[in-house]
């Protein structure tokens, strides 16, 4: 095992894939300045700074990937992806289908997101669900150093466009990463903590909040299972359903806004495919329908915290008892 920051785990993944495949390259605003190790090893043809223009960064990646390159682009902060929406959504996501399968787009588009740096809504917007909603794209949002490495390697090898989201607050956190070749498949969730009473489903740094909530619940004798989705598309439906059927109670947690977020999709899947197994309504703990504030206390109130998750999970048992009482009194 080695101990790496998430930033370095990503860098190591890219370096390994660049050694393995000469078609892998990386560009973006300041990439060559900030990833000096990659620049030194692979040179300025494969590691490039770009002009400040997200549209052309993404467009160049789409065009190059169609012709056999495997570009990794860094779009810095997720809200800046809106300037590359046409290239990512209309081109990368659609031109394979619309050309009858003539082209493929093996590219990775990275961006940072999430609370923690009090940067405000034009730097922090969890817009990952926008891309889940767009055909032809894959979306990942890891939560551990090992997964950042393993998923980045898989994303680079994947023949489809992958949106790769990085929690900015976790960028310089360290974690264990297995030595040697380490791949994590796209579309596979991880069970972070096994439990029998309630399932907490999450991704990104909200997974940590869920783990903390699970510890609080355990003190009260409630055993929560914590599922880290890791990939939002493909979504690991099997893992979600298996856990929901086991516990019968589900809380979905994410920092992204509530309406039409990934949590809504999960609630719908559970309603369609696990309805009879559910003992209580599926709850969502998310940010409210507001842009992410900058002010520290507001930012803290915006993001799901462990206490609120634990309270929500505990309430599922109360409503269960209430339902039982109602049935008994009728």
């Amino acid at each position, binding site marked *: 095992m080695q101990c790496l920051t998430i930033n370095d785990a990503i860098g190591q993944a890219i370096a390994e894939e660049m050694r393995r495949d000469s078609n892998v390259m990386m560009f973006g*605003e*300041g990439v060559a*300045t*900030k990833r000096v190790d990659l620049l030194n090893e692979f040179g300025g043809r494969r590691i490039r*700074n*770009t*002009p*400040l*223009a997200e*549209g052309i960064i993404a467009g160049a990646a789409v065009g190059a990937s169609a012709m056999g390159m495997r570009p990794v682009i860094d779009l810095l902060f997720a*809200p*800046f992806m*809106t*300037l590359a929406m046409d290239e990512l959504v209309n081109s990368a996501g659609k031109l394979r289908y619309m050309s009858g399968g003539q082209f493929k787009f093996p590219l990775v588009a990275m961006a940072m997101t999430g609370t923690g*740096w*009090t*940067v*405000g809504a*034009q*730097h922090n917007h969890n817009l990952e669900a926008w891309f889940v909603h767009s055909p032809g794209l894959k979306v990942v949002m890891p939560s551990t150093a090992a997964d950042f490495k393993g998923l980045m390697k898989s994303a680079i090898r994947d023949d489809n466009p992958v949106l790769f989201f990085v929690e900015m607050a976790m960028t310089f956190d360290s974690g264990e990463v297995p030595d040697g070749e380490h791949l994590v498949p796209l579309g596979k969730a991880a069970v972070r903590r096994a439990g029998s009473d309630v399932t907490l489903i999450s991704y990104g740094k909200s997974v940590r909040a869920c783990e903390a909530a699970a510890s609080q619940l355990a003190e009260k004798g409630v055993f929560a299972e914590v599922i880290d989705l890791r990939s939002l598309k493909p979504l690991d439906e099997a893992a979600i359903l298996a856990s929901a059927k086991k516990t019968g109670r589900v809380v979905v947690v994410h920092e992204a806004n509530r309406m039409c977020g990934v949590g809504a999709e999960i609630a719908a899947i559970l309603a369609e495919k696990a309805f009879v197994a559910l003992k209580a309504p599926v709850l969502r703990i998310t940010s*409210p*329908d*507001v*842009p992410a*504030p*900058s*002010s*520290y*206390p*507001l930012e803290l*109130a*915006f993001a799901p915290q462990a206490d609120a998750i634990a309270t929500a999970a505990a309430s599922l048992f109360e409503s269960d008892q209430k339902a039982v009482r109602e049935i008994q009194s009728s």
Partner: protein
Amino acid sequence: MTEAVEPGALRGMLENMLTIRAYEEKAAAMQAVGQAAGTCTSVGQEAAAVGVVAALGAEDLILTNHRSAGHLLARGADPARIYAEVLGKATGYCKGKSGSLHVSAKELGVVLTSTIVGAELSLAAGVGLASSMQGRNNVVACFFGDGAASEGSFHESLNLAAVWKLPILYVCENNQWQAFVHRRETMPMDHISDWAASHGMPAASVDGNDVEAVYRAAQAGIAHIKTTGQPYFLETWTYRTRGHYEPDDQGYVDPDELAAWRAQDPIDRLQRKLDLDAVEIQVIQKRVAQRIEKAWNEAIAAPYPALADLTSDVYA
């Protein structure tokens, strides 16, 4: 050519530049000791803000970006309220909801500040359109960086302003840096004014560290806009002498280039030009330092927004 600027006005500009410098250095120092989040400072670029804003009238409007403190202060903003915004306090110009990167102050005519690089260029076209439709007879000054000129919105904005004859004074602060990338890595020429000229508008490039020259150039641009109703482009040739934001060790900056530009510091140059005696300078510096210190203390003492404000101001 415009007449010489009278010394009293230049002394006022000196005090404004010193105020901006003191404001930025205090913000950086407080970041360094963990009392404030990082901000993008405009140290070394004060002459652009002060020279251009001095040439504007009260009815004129300003759009700015992530590096806005200089523009705001030159326009008469209360440093305590900018600090409060940086600190996320309720008394900030945006009630603490902006932080340092998007400080608008409509009461000062500083509208629609955005940290999306290039957004101010798109939005300026609309602000200019409204000015023209409503017959306001004002000028819209749009401040942006050399990096923003690589965004499509730069070219889209200039083209629309030229064909629709919008009263926009484009002010490109060419500070040689685009975050962590030097301008020469991203464009084949040096001057953004060359691009602007090809959009069919008069485009000047001025020594951006000479506040008097900037002021006169802005006056000339404004006169052009007022007489022809058409946009004008002004590039201020300058240098970002601190990092992109705080903290930033500037390890990627060529030390010789930095030293050469520090020797062209706009405040030093104006002090030399005005030939003030040491006592006079000290008096001004002390006044500025006290004002900034007081502003910081006010901001620190101000309350955070109420939690209920998390959900206010989303919809009109």
